[in-house]
């Protein structure tokens, strides 16, 4: 069977999306740095209305407009892992497994970025890179869970069963996502309380809220773009694995053909 060609060029949709995301990001950065007023309080008081601990201009607030959308996209990514995992267990169709795997990779990346940006925001503000409060701990746990998911997939000896077990991990792991989010609402932590998706409604003034929502939209677009690329890679990997399995059943062709070393390197999903 001739192995199928995977498309070499990105479709127009992908290119359009790339342009939109890039433009959106540019507009967002302009809004963050020039539209949203810079606060004059680096370390706010313990509660709204309390005096400022450190009344200096607050430039690191600009990290906030990246940190929050990145966190939301991580939630979204792991939600997609949940959907893909459940669908894969029900239908055994590999496309759902590919979806879950792709989204888990991107989710891990975004969770890592969320942790890093959070640390860089926290250090000038609170004097420490890290603390073991509920939010940071549970977010780190989320990171560990899905890193475990990815490692497990690499180690599974039986591909079919490995995918099924990974789906279960993907489903169970998602339980941490609402915990992470509501830890910002339920407990008094060093991490600031959740101000956008809050049961009491968004707690931000207009220009900040609009900018934040814009950045959430931009990052969601970026997520979709990354998913398109990553699932394309997944399809190519599966096609390659199938093609190599089929090739092994055929007798070797005549002539000085050697199996290139790229066989092992190419198959790592």
């Amino acid at each position: 069977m001739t192995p199928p060609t995977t498309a070499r060029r990105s479709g127009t949709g992908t290119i359009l999306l790339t342009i939109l995301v890039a433009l959106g990001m540019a507009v967002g950065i302009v809004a963050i740095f020039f539209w949203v007023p810079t606060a004059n309080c680096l370390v706010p008081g313990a509660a709204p209305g309390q005096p400022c601990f450190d009344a200096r201009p607050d430039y690191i607030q600009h990290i906030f407009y990246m940190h929050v959308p990145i966190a939301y996209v991580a939630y979204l990514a792991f939600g997609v892992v949940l959907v893909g995992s459940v669908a894969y267990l029900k239908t055994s169709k590999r496309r759902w497994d590919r979806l879950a795997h792709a989204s888990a990779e991107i989710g891990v990346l975004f969770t890592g970025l969320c942790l890093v940006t959070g640390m860089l925001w926290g250090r000038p503000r609170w004097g420490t890179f890290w603390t073991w409060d509920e939010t940071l701990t549970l977010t780190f746990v989320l990171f560990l869970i899905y890193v475990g998911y990815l490692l497990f997939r690499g180690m599974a000896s039986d591909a079919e069963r490995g995918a099924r077990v990974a789906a279960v991990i993907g489903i169970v792991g998602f339980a941490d996502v609402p915990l992470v989010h509501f830890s910002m609402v339920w407990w008094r932590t060093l991490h600031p309380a959740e101000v956008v998706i809050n049961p009491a409604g968004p707690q931000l003034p207009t220009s900040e809220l609009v900018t934040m929502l814009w950045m959430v939209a931009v990052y969601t677009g970026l997520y979709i773009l990354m998913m398109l690329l990553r699932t394309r890679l997944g399809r190519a990997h599966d096609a390659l694995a199938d093609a190599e399995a089929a090739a092994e059943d055929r007798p070797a062709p005549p002539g000085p053909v050697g199996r290139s070393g790229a066989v092992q390197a190419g198959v790592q999903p």
Partner: protein
Amino acid sequence: MKHQFAYLGVAYTAIWAGIGGYLLFLGRRQRATDRRLEELRERDQAHRE
């Protein structure tokens, strides 16, 4: 105050580096896989002839 900009700069750089690096990494693996698929197709064609 200036060191705030340092943190800001590192944060934004980390974001672009992370996302950009991942996209480049994806691109490289995609090309490697596509290349390998091409090789198999050509071997398949040669085999048929």
